[in-house]
């Protein structure tokens, strides 16, 4: 395990009692967590190989409390790490020992649903899925659907600019958020955007989304809600080889068809997910696509006919349509529990690079070769329509050599994505995981420009400071 953390600031550690005493009056008593046992619950996120117990945990209940805590920490030079549900896969929410964690879990109310304007105003700690649940009776939904949607928060989604299976058609978080209320490190409360389609001045909301808790802390968001399609139907397409499946994806898009989702699974992933979800996935194929179409029965039939035609030109072996709501649910359950199901078999790390879809076949082939050469099993399950790969590299956590080699290979695969014309992360964020690879994708000038923008919001680098930018060369 080789990702370094910055050395903790001894002066802050020495002043811990004083800092806690200063925080206490700013929060309700139960909202400040100080005991070792309770703090330990916040020591890591879903990137579990790394952990640090924070100085304290603050769980504010209002924007004003967030502001008061930040203002105090700003005065005292205390670092702050924002945390939603802690499902980050890149270590974005992992604290450091000289920082406090600011958790948004108590800001969990849906404040207003505005159907005439097709927007909802929610607090940052609201879970992704609960937004859809709040509007589904009226035929609406919140579009970005990360597989973690039951747990992850809208604040975390904004932090990471999260995506999901249905983003091919509906876009990712940044395309579905119209405004945020946020607090800067010095306690200033800012409203970026709002309920209108755009806002005056620079697109500060645009740079806030995906900023991984480094520019400010979101306390409220205004999101777009969209009308649900009349109906939706996922169809399974089995191929002998990943190459054929990859080429089929490119051909579908090239033919001007954008299905609402196109998810890819290789043989290993199919076996793992089928064992878990009993979704009726074909076990005797080399690769599978889940392609979902939407609309009325007539429209879905017409679009499917075109897709099946194209698939036939790519030697599709199995075509299996969902025949019922139950089958549809099972098909998606299998896909959305891919990480959990893999986790039952082995420890894994999940990479998240994106490549041009034309490079999918090549990158898949190289991924297999690289993992095999190092003796790691790998399952590939990912958003094929937008080229966002998710190789799950399996390893044995009790064997330090295996863990180190998995980590090494993961980074090699990310470099492969950049070499193929893509990027290090499509939706999971840089966090600590890819921080030291940033120079592989960006020049020094690129990074410095980003860091200067970061410094506009947080000149002292107190917000989630160990993330995203390589530790050396900051100033």
């Amino acid at each position: 395990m080789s990702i370094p953390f910055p050395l903790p600031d001894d002066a802050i550690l020495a002043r811990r009692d004083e800092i806690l005493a200063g925080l206490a009056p700013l929060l309700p008593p139960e909202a400040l967590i100080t005991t070792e046992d309770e703090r330990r619950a916040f020591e890591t996120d879903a990137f579990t190989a790394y952990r640090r117990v924070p100085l304290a945990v603050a769980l504010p209940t209002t924007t004003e409390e967030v502001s008061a805590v930040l203002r105090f920490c700003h005065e005292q030079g205390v670092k702050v790490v924002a945390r939603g549900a802690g499902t980050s896969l890149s270590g974005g929410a992992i604290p450091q020992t000289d920082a406090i964690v600011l958790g948004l879990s108590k800001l969990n109310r849906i404040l207003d649903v505005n159907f005439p304007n097709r927007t909802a105003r929610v607090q940052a700690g609201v879970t992704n899925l609960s937004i859809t649940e709040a509007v589904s009776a009226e035929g609406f939904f919140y579009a970005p659907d990360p597989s973690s949607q039951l747990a992850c928060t809208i604040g975390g989604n904004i932090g990471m600019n999260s995506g999901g299976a249905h983003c091919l058609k509906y876009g990712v978080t940044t395309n579905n958020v119209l405004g945020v209320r946020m607090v800067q490190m010095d306690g200033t409360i800012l409203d970026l955007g709002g309920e209108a389609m755009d806002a005056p001045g620079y697109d500060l909301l645009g740079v806030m989304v995906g900023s991984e808790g480094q520019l400010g802390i979101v306390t409220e968001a205004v999101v777009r809600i969209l009308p649900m399609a009349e109906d939706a139907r996922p169809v399974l397409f089995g191929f002998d080889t990943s190459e054929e499946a990859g080429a089929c994806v490119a051909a579908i898009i090239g033919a001007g068809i954008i299905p609402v989702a196109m998810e890819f699974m290789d043989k290993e992933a199919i076996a793992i997910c089928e064992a878990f979800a009993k979704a009726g996935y074909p076990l005797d194929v080399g690769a599978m696509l889940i392609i979902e179409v939407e609309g009325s029965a007539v429209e879905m039939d017409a679009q499917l006919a075109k897709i099946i035609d194209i698939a036939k030109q790519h030697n599709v072996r199995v075509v299996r349509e969902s025949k019922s709501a139950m089958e549809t649910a099972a098909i998606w359950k299998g896909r959305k529990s891919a990480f959990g199901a893999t986790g039952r078999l082995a420890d894994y790390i999940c990479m998240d690079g994106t490549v041009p879809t034309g490079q999918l076949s090549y990158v898949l082939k190289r991924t297999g070769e690289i993992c095999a050469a190092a003796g790691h099993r790998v399952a590939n399950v990912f958003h094929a329509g937008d080229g966002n790969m998710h190789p799950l590299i399996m390893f044995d956590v009790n064997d330090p050599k295996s863990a180190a080699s998995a980590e090494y290979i993961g980074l090699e695969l990310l470099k492969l994505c950049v070499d193929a014309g893509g990027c290090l992360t499509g939706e999971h964020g840089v966090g600590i995981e890819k921080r030291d690879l940033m120079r592989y994708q960006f020049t020094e000038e690129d990074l410095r420009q980003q860091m200067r923008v970061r410094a506009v919001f947080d000149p002292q680098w107190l917000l989630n400071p160990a993330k995203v930018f390589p530790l050396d060369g900051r100033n």
Partner: protein
Amino acid sequence: MTQLMQRLEPQSEQEACAIVKQARLDRWSLAIEGGGTRAGLGRPVPADAVLSTRRLTGITLYEPAELVISARAGTPLAEVEAALAAKGQMLPFEPADYRALYGTSGEPTIGAIAACNLSGPRRIQTGAARDALIGVRLVNGEAQAVKSGGRVMKNVTGLDLVKLTCGSHGTLGLLTEVTFKLLPRPQAQATLILDGLDDERAIAAMGSALSSPFEVSGAAHLPTGHDGTGAQTLLRLERDDVSLAYRAQKLTDRLAPFGALRRLEGEVSAALWRDIAQVKPLAKAHGPAIWKLSLPAHKATACMRAISESLGARYFYDWGGGLIWLAVMPGDDAGALRIRAAVAEAHGHATLMRAPDDIRKTQDVFAPLGAALMKVTSGIKQSFDPDGIFNPGRMYAGV
């Protein structure tokens, strides 16, 4: 400096860097110009020289099967659109062409489209220019070539500077290359028209259409009609033939409580939406100042009522009511005080899109920002362009 308004026309990003480096040494400011078609947009720029993208042209990457195109910033929009049309694709956000509005005749460039973040009627369905822009290269005020984003559809690597530059009106740097994601061009389109609705009913009808599963890609209301006949509420569907017929019928049924719907198809429908994208219903008349109001749709009619009480205005709604185009006689302040008050009440903002120079010199063109936002805004400007070389004062004093 001696030669006022010298034109600088780099042929490469490298040359652009050299120009900016020199400008920095000589303390020149530079007005960035693409096609010069939006010369009337923004505050007038008092600059020492024009930095033009006229020679920075050419499509650098087009992968139809990956729905992505990159072009140098000075590439005429028409060239990009022709290349896309040949493969049955399009820029999703329906880039607006404001030549009619400004009475200019240059060729709009793809770089200026990115710099201005101006989107047409389809914005409600497929997103704004800022949603489609996935990569930029730019030269900042320190004469460094900087990239952000890339050519892939999903990318959260580092801060999203692409969004910051989109809509920065050339105040953060010279865009040298831009990359957009694309959509397949729909095979067919139709416009459903409701006649004679008042504003309130029209917004409700558009709201109903936009809350339906039928993916309405344009929703506009013209209170005095397109051809001066009377109020028209327009709803656009863009689909393949099978789907279009089905959805037009479903939508007609759904909106029956608002009246009988007429239907326009094909090129007639397309021409109508081109006019709306180009603000033709108001652009024709020279003289009046033109405002663009962006606000929550459910507050649109109340806002318009407040404005009409004190100002003689012609106007129409787009984006289902989320956008109001407004023409007023210029007067001293082009109605700024009353319009800004009414739109603020509605939690929206107003941009003065067209007005004589003397008004744009004294009135804010973009809605003024509060102190905290202005501080961040000035900081961002500083972080890209510490010496204030590019388009000084185009958006705000000092920005």
